[in-house]
């Protein structure tokens, strides 16, 4: 069941999916996440490798031929996008509730 989604995504998986709205290879994902988080989150290669394989198995991303044949590139699938949208809704709820209770 590729669309089975009942738990929060890890921060790494969330940012990997977000990065793959554009076609990218592993190193590109690491750089993109670093830029998006102003250097706060630097994806470790082992975590990224495991996450990519799991996401491929779930069908949330797919592998595509890149410009450089030595490096595999990946892109978000429709079911991956569906998961991402659900997660953004969940995260928005978390943040909105937080702001209701804590002055920021």
């Amino acid at each position, binding site marked *: 069941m590729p669309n089975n989604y009942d738990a929060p995504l*890890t*921060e790494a998986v969330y940012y990997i999916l977000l990065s793959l709205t554009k076609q990218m290879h592993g190193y590109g994902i690491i750089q993109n996440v670093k830029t998006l988080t102003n250097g706060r989150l*630097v994806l470790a*290669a*082992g*975590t990224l490798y495991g996450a990519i394989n799991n996401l491929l198995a779930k069908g949330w991303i797919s592998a595509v031929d890149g410009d450089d044949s030595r490096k595999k590139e990946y892109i978000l699938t429709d079911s991956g996008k569906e998961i991402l949208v659900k997660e953004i809704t969940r995260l928005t709820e978390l943040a909105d509730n937080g702001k209701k209770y804590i002055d920021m």
Partner: protein
Amino acid sequence: MTREIHFWTIDKYKQEEQWLNDLAAQGKALIKQDFGVRYRFEPCEKGEWQYKILFTDNLPNTVEAQDFESFLAENGIEQVGRFHRWAYFRKKNDGTPFELYNTKKDEYNEMSKVLNMATVLRTLMIFDWVLMFALGVFEGFVGHLPVILLVTVVTVFIYNVHKNLKGQVELLKRDADLFE
């Protein structure tokens, strides 16, 4: 280039990793690791390299192991040694910590696999010890004494290795339950 022989037990692989990083900080870089005990070093700039030891999911020379190695190579991480499921990696020191995992859960999962291997070893040794002891009971201890003593020493040793690993895994689990 220098060749050295060192023995590290499987419960001490984090200490071994720290040892390699300390050597690199002093200007001695590991360039090859064979059979889990033979280390080849070369002089380097002080702190030029950072090292990481990983207990991987696959045996060397499998498609999966090669896929993982080339994925890491794309990210500037070089494999300098491979023995059974143990892999030795290094990368140029760019001022950031060398991590292969982002989450405590990943670290916990990795060390749990080492613990599983130690559990199998411990079970086999205990079984072996019981077998030796039973033979001693039936056939007289005198002839079997050297073997019984040897098996006893190895069993106690592996029992302690397992106990150390278990302690480390429990600490990691506590962190993994609290943090991502």
